[in-house]
């Protein structure tokens, strides 16, 4: 219990420091102004979401080969947490885009591929709700998770390629290789803070799933007796 409290306090502190860094330490972007500061949350969440999906993929592989319920629990926990972070990306994207580009949504390569990624993991979770039997649910959702993750680089590649061939409606004066050093440090720090939050959420979600699994096992034993 105290361990949880300490971990929670630590993550809270990190997030506070991250907010401070994004607002006061990072320099104001020349053309976009203060709105660009949402970048640290936006990109940080995107990276954290991808980290979650990578964890989910590894957990899925381990489940298929080892068949321990804990890999299934980690799979569902990381998919849900990853989906939460990806949702943050999809919400902060339009908030950033509206004042800068003058529109809420554009079918920009990165936004679009993130949307497809989001849909892929929504269907992963949907699949899980539609299979009753726990072992079967674990196996088949793990297999779908593997296929979905293999699809991710193809989705990003295809959409990127496709978009660069069309005239862009708006030129994204976006962050690229030429990121200012302070901005880069703040972004990396932001990622670390969000990874902390991710770990905390994963831990709790995993424990919840473990309890649920044990409860189901006990229920089955009672029914059998």
């Amino acid at each position: 219990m105290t361990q949880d409290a300490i971990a929670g306090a630590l993550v809270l502190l990190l997030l506070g420091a991250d907010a401070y860094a994004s607002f006061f330490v990072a320099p104001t972007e020349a053309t976009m102004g203060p709105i660009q500061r949402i970048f640290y949350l936006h990109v940080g969440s995107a990276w954290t979401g991808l980290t979650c999906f990578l964890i989910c993929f590894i957990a899925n592989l381990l489940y298929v080969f080892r068949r321990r319920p804990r890999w299934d629990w980690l799979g569902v926990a990381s998919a849900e947490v990853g989906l939460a972070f990806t949702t943050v990306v999809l919400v902060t994207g339009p908030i950033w885009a509206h004042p800068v580009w003058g529109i809420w949504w554009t079918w920009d390569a990165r936004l679009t591929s993130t949307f497809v990624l989001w849909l892929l993991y929504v269907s992963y979770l949907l699949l899980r709700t539609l299979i009753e039997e726990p072992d079967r649910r674990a196996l088949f959702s793990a297999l779908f998770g593997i296929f979905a993750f293999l699809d991710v680089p193809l989705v990003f590649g295809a959409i990127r390629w496709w978009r660069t061939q069309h005239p862009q409606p708006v030129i994204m004066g976006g962050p690229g290789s030429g990121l200012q050093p302070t901005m880069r440090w703040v972004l990396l720090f932001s990622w670390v803070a969000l990874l902390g939050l991710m770990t905390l959420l994963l831990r709790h979600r995993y424990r919840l799933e473990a309890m649920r699994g044990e409860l189901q096992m006990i229920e089955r034993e009672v029914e059998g007796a």
Partner: protein
Amino acid sequence: MSLISNATVLFGKELRTEFRSRELLTTTVVFVLMVVVLFSFTFDPSSTESRRFAPGLLWLAFLFAASLMLQPCFLREQTNDTLSALRLSVSDPFAIFLAKLAANTLFLLITELLMLPVFSILFNIPVGSVVGSLVLVFFLGSLGISVTGTALSAISAQARMRELLLPILLLPLLTPVLIASTEATAALLDPAPAFRRDWIGFLAVFDIVFLTALWLFGEYLLEE
């Protein structure tokens, strides 16, 4: 070599099952035709815009049709209780997938080739000079749809609401195929036809990636 011979026998079985009734093919062809006609109401097909819209429309229709056509693929084995027998009859479970995906690719390709002249007439787009390249794009696209679709129909057959679930699992996964085949088809149907090696190569890469995945994980997909 037993893999190929097993797969060939099973492929023959899939074809026999289908050509006895031809219900899958007829339904799919009618479905695609219906979608193409209904789509034409949503924009003016006589305008020059149709050249831009038509390839995407065509592939979207193929994708929707495939997500319906692939339903019975494993469901049929399940309702007839033949899946265990099928598994016992082959040494490598990949043979089952190979046969099923070859059959599905063939059915999709037949549907697409039947639709091509109709499409060409309805949207006033001449296809005669590029038929060979079009068939290649159709084949690679259909193979990609069938490989992933066959795998996912084994997954969705295990779930409730499977009729609704398969399209939901399949369509986001097929985004790269939709983009690549639409682009390749659009380039071929252009007044100055172009053979897009990059997109056709991309389709081939997609097919290889998921064929390998299916080969690696196929045996787990057949567990009961």
